[in-house]
């Protein structure tokens, strides 16, 4: 589905169902060098279980036009503008990695417009090493490999986005290459990582959030280790924390546990088996 957001064509995947403003809406925000497709196993399920889903390609990524957001704040403004374009007064925001910071900042900027906030693989601060930042420009494919090796937690992932037989590491590498190639004007790898590294407002933002918050963290996550979310968790008022038995590829390495946590939280039911609360 295409929306016009601030004059730019913006693609949102709707989970195989037509967008229906009468249903509650969940907006999914991807991380650096990702697009909507990293959320397939969560969005398609929710779309067929009473939710409206909008899994966006951020500006300047794959199917969406516009300038890639250079800061978390700019990306948050974009998400709120997307809600305007879709005619949404309120929505649940679900973000992964960079996208989790974007969701957090958007929830802080317009608390009344966010019904639930889900932060997947979040950390604050989300520092990116100088070496990795430099490599994202000078040797982006090598840096992409580094990121994916750090993100991986297993050589034997379960059935995933392409069904059984998906090699999650390879799929993530291929998606990263595709997203990078999709913008010939701006290096969205560097831009995204720089935005993560530069974001200062995480703790203040969390104090302004008024909706229920779910943290979904990978026990084996080397990109955003669970301990890097501690300060945010302390500040979140109405928060639930679920630790998944995987790394930074929560949606694709632990898709069932991720769905159970998300579905349980969004529907305010007891979290299904798979994740464990600490």
């Amino acid at each position, binding site marked *: 589905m295409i929306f016009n957001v601030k004059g730019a064509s913006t693609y949102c995947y709707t989970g195989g169902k037509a967008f229906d403003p009468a249903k509650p809406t969940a907006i999914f925000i991807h991380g650096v060098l990702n697009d909507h497709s990293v959320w397939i196993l969560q969005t398609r399920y929710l779309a067929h279980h009473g939710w409206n889903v909008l899994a966006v390609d951020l500006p300047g990524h794959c199917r969406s036009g516009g300038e890639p957001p250079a800061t978390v704040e700019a990306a948050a403004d974009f998400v709120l503008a997307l809600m305007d374009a879709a005619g949404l007064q309120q929505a649940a925001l679900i973000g992964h990695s960079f996208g989790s910071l974007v969701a957090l900042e958007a929830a802080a900027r317009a608390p009344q417009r966010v019904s639930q906030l889900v932060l997947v693989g979040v950390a604050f601060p989300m520092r990116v090493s100088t070496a990795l930042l430099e490599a994202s420009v000078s040797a982006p494919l090598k840096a992409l490999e580094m990121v994916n090796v750090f993100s991986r937690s297993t050589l034997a992932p379960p059935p995933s986005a392409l*069904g*059984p*037989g998906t090699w999650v590491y390879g799929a993530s590498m291929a998606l990263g290459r595709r997203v990078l190639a999709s913008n010939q004007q701006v290096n969205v790898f560097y831009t995204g990582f720089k935005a993560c590294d530069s974001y200062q407002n995480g703790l203040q933002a969390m104090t302004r959030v008024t909706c229920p918050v779910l943290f979904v963290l990978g026990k084996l996550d080397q990109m955003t280790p669970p301990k890097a979310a501690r300060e945010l968790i302390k500040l979140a008022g109405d928060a639930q924390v679920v630790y998944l038995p995987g790394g930074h590829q929560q949606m694709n390495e632990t898709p069932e546990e991720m769905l159970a946590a998300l579905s349980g939280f969004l529907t305010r039911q007891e979290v299904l088996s798979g994740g464990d609360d600490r």
Partner: protein
Amino acid sequence: MPGYSNPGFDTLALHAGAAPDPATGARALPIYLTTSFVFESSDHAQSLFNLERAGHVYSRISNPTNAVLEQRISALEGGIGAIAVASGQAALHLSIATLMGAGSHIVASTALYGGSQNLLHYTLRRFGIDTTFVKPGDIDGWRAAVRPDTKLFFGETVGNPGLDVLDIPTVSAIAHEAGVPLLIDSTLTTPWLMKPFDFGADLVYHSATKFLSGHGTVIGGLVVDGGSFDWEAAGRFPELCQPYDGFHNMVFSEESSVGAFLLRARREGLRDFGACMSPHSAWLILQGMETLPLRMARHMSNTGRVVEFLASQPFVARVGHPMLPSHPGHALAAKLLPRGAGSVFSFDLKGTRAQGKAFVEALKLFSHLANVGDCRSLVIHPASTTHFRMSDTALAAGGITQGTIRLSIGLEDPDDLIDDLKRALKAAEKSA
């Protein structure tokens, strides 16, 4: 297994896709010999059928043992995922049938396995899919063969019967200029010798019957997607980029930006054509793949010894292996296949059909049969077997002489292989 470096080929050959069984602790991979898998609830069932959740439903579509094999070949090839099927021929058919229907066109190398040639030249024409054949080294020919209805370029890493080395970087560039993907049959080289995705191929398939399983015990095929081809940008693949009413109006390229091919191949191809692999076959192939690096190294060192020996024999007119400077693909093989161009090759005796037969019959270690890629050394004499109906003139047109012998070099002691060949050469020479 979180880590700070990417596991190497040998590690992936053992571990990719498999972990100790969480239910029993079994270290070796269990064989899940079951047709079907119990649903947790009606909602779970519906979600699996609608691709809302990933999991197993029915073993024609997927199976846990097969999924390990699919992940392992994907890891070794550098792909995003794979599909295990009943044979190499089923892999080729699944690739083609997923991408096109009647009214489509393929550009293929002339240097193909005979079964592939049959499928393209005879059978698929009956279903409205036309193929133009181009000599693998005829670069202008590949470009000139493209038509508005072209959907695929297809070749082998090293082609039958002369081990023509396909210039994959150049041919893939031409394919991509035309907006079509390049499919590579990588059976004879395996990812240990070459990873075609590194050179621009988009899809790779194997007859896993050969070197991947390596022991001559099982028939199977694998299709691997590199995730590199942009189906939407190409504008030629409504099968992947338009709503498919045969599967919930799914637009496969929206569901997965990089995996649309695999989604349709499994959800339509395995569902409807049904050429699935038995989990027992998958297990046997995996057993072989665990030792692929060790076996391939030995295949290549043995091949080096045998090629060297044959090239020195006065009764041998020609040895067709790219390791020899006389082979037209020598330089290209050095670039694309630095570990070697495989252990299946042919050579020509200076003799008649009868002498070719005498040679084969005199061999003791080499097994006379129609297969390649076994751990045991194999031999066949095309003029008296696979091509026996052809006249000498027709044979010559196909690059085969009366005395052409095809060998598949196995893992025996190389001195014993050379002794066997030496004896057979003498027998053939005397039989004149």
